[in-house]
């Protein structure tokens, strides 16, 4: 098992300034750096899709059985897409940092810190949070299978 600081990403201009640490599982089916770059590209695409309210792009990346845990609720893909589509959920900004990626063959776990400002049901939420995304390679492409968000509270 190795842990190292990631090299600068060539293709992901959105993530270029985010510090990122990558760890590798023992078995690898692809080049780790290629997987890392691909995942960061997908994260960048998801961010753009959320800001542009491009629900079709999100639909493509989210696995059909994706689970999304936020604000104490468990939501399905259909519910999340409906929230974005209706405007019940929208992001005014998307700010992620401290991104860490763990690669396990066809599974990637990405964790990070978010100070994004979002609006849910008309209420502005800007509490700092920790988020995790789990991706699995299905039908030859990386798909988001789980997303979890936890508000950061002081002890």
């Amino acid at each position, binding site marked *: 098992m190795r842990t190292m600081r990631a090299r600068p990403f060539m293709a992901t201009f959105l993530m270029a300034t985010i510090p990122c640490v990558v760890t590798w599982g023992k078995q690898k089916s692809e080049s780790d750096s290629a997987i890392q770059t691909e995942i960061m590209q997908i994260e960048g695409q998801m961010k753009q899709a959320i800001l542009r309210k491009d629900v079709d792009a999100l639909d493509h990346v989210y696995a059909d059985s994706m689970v999304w*845990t936020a604000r104490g609720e468990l939501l399905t893909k259909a519910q999340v897409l409906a929230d974005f589509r209706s405007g019940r959920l929208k992001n005014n900004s998307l700010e992620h940092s401290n991104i860490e990626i763990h690669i396990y063959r066809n*599974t990637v*776990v990405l964790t990070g810190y978010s100070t994004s400002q979002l609006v849910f049901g008309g209420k502005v939420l800007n509490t700092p949070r*920790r988020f*995790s995304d*789990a991706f699995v390679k299905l039908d030859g492409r990386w798909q988001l299978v*789980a997303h979890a*968000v936890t508000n950061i509270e002081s002890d």
Partner: protein
Amino acid sequence: MIRRTILVAILAVSSVAFAKAQATVNSSEKSTQAVLKVEEETDRAFVKRDWDRLSHYWADTLVYVNGKGKNRTKAEWLAYLKSGAIKYYPAVHSNVLVHVYQDTAVVTGYSTTKTVENEKVSTGPRRFTKVYVKENGRWQLVLVQITSVSKR
């Protein structure tokens, strides 16, 4: 004769596809049961303070995010547990869902398990999201994230 050959070929392809689909379903069901067994064993290990058992099921790269959004590595989380700062009572979970994607499993659930952390009693409620990866023939936990649920 040609028509008969085509029919036989179609039936053969259909049978293979059906068998493959059945194998996938059976394999998925087997994996679900295996992951749930690991969940049960780790729940018991928390109560019995069996750190070796927990360590066995946790990947070295485990990321643990608690209900306050604090993240810990496997080593940090084990050290915190060993310090005695938190005590676990028998697990009370509901709405547990398992999604299996070959060698990956996502488990979600709702928990009201009683814990005492730094003398503060909590029964949540909370939701958990866990990701398991099958490596070297065994399921290992690679991510746990807890999210508090507002009491209504």
